[in-house]
């Protein structure tokens, strides 16, 4: 799991070659509560770092999910349509949101590693 990088908005990203997988952190799913719906982007959409890429809804809240880095959406997790609770059960695993073909993998360097992120959320409480 050490390959995960995190944003201040609680997205994670994991790079495999030139394609990266994006989801929301365990902390984020816990804050949201039971996820009931995920609105995913269409394949081929260009997203920019910090721009809206998806929406995640729980019973009482809805949040934008922002793209951690620039890229193009090459895959989305269709399983979330039938089973949005995957986001709660396995936020950094089967509950992933989308895969991005990255414009510039170096952008990941600007994000937090897991230790830094855990430190960051500890400061939020």
């Amino acid at each position, binding site marked *: 799991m050490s390959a995960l990088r995190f944003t201040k908005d609680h997205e994670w990203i994991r790079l495999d070659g030139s394609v990266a997988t994006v989801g929301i952190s365990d902390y984020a799913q816990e804050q949201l509560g*039971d996820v*009931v*719906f995920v609105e995913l982007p269409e394949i081929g959409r260009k997203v920019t770092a910090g721009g809206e890429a998806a929406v995640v*809804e729980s*019973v009482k809240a809805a949040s934008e999910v922002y793209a951690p880095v620039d890229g193009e959406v090459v895959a989305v997790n269709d399983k979330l349509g039938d089973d*949005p*609770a995957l986001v709660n059960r396995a936020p950094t695993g089967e509950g992933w949101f989308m895969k991005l073909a990255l414009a510039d993998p170096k952008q990941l360097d600007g994000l937090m590693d897991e230790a830094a992120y855990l430190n960051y959320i500890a400061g939020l409480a």
Partner: protein
Amino acid sequence: MTATGPGTTSGHRGLLFEEPLIFESGTEGRSGVDLPDPPAVADRLGGLRRRTALGWPGLSEPQVIRHFTRLSQKNYAIDAGLYPLGSCTMKHNPRLNEKLARLPGFADIHPLQPVSTVQGALALIDTLARWLKALTNMPAVAMSPAAGAHGELCGLMAIRAAQDARAAPRRKVLVPDSAHGTNPATAAMCGYTVEAVPLNARGRVDLAALRRALDGDTAAFMLTNPNTCGLFEDEILEQAAAIHDAGAFFYCDGANFNALVGRVRPGDLGIDCMHINLHKTFSTPHGGGGPGSGPVTLSAALAPFAPVPYVVHDANGFRLVETAGDAAAGLAPLGRLKGFHGQMGMFVRALAFMMSHGADGLLQASSDAVLNANYVLARLADRMSLPYDGPCMHEVLFDDAFLKDTGVTTLDFAKAMIDEGFHPMTMYFPLVVHGAFLIEPTESESKEGLDVFVATMRSLAERARSGDAAPFLAAPQFAPRRRLDETRAARQPVLRWRRSNHPGEAA
């Protein structure tokens, strides 16, 4: 359906009836309305006669009466008890108003009858407008908006029209952190971006932050006053001056006008525009979520942009201006927001309420509303936790600090209130305090009634603090249903009955 309740064969428990859906009890070929045979004619339907089956169930009149009577018994209502929903002003709904709204001369008139045949209706709208203008000290009022949020849309569109007319369009609307969600939603519908202004430590808008946020691109500041923390904005004159210095307009969400009516006129506070929820302040019934009515008072600068239709008076009596082209020179209506002329049925009720109270009674009503809220504050302050000091206006805000480490949340507490026979207060709103309890008793509650409520709240607070969380977590136990699974409802929405939803269970 899930019919088997504990211990009875029928599923009913005394006066608590389990009631199926009309689709489950209805039968084809039955009707509760007798209609004559249509005269024989060659149809002129152009071949479009309905072929698609209609699944409406057939029921007789006694079945329908019983069905809806049983459903009604599953509802809490003002008529049954205290309904202290903050910022909703659940006051008594006088029955005189219902009677008058049903007079054929009001209820059975068509909106497009010749105006010569509806002079009384137009006079009523004009009279209600006069009351609203007097009570707010504002020169104009747009009567057609259908509810508070619709009134906000009207007000912001008038502001936008006024600024666009000066060829000086602006793009930003400021709202406090504590604003009702309709405010930003409405601003977005008018093409504005929304910027939040924080509150200060006293629960009011941070004046310095407001001044910093105001600039040449600010169209308006939307304020609720008294605000959603139940507090009067004591720097409102300074806010108004800053807003007007920036060339912006001051919009007031009038949801909380019940604290001020008959005592303080919003026009004297520098407000340019305020919607009035007739279904709150002026007692038109809430009806389980409407219909409402949201007239918008307007300053002289905004009045020319009021939407059509509106009532005018000339030598021939009253008439309606129904299209922009019919507007007098110098007026530039922003368009039309609603079919026909507004919520006439609500106008009759609201005017009956105002005339019954009169100016003196409205002042007494707002005074009693504020007295009641402060009484609740005073009697609960030592058992619950106040984020901001009083006095409050017509509603009092507590947070959940007093529940810290009890294992009981605001939601649990609210559900326990249901078991005690009270409707819960507004909870988790405003968002600026943690686990909000927003309590608005209104002027309709007697001291005896409030004493029972206060004693109950104190007892619940003590029980929670004593570590007895179990009854809260299990609550409600004495309602027609216990806690419902909202996650399931949202994950796999079932929004209509289908025979296939409940195979084998339909009648």
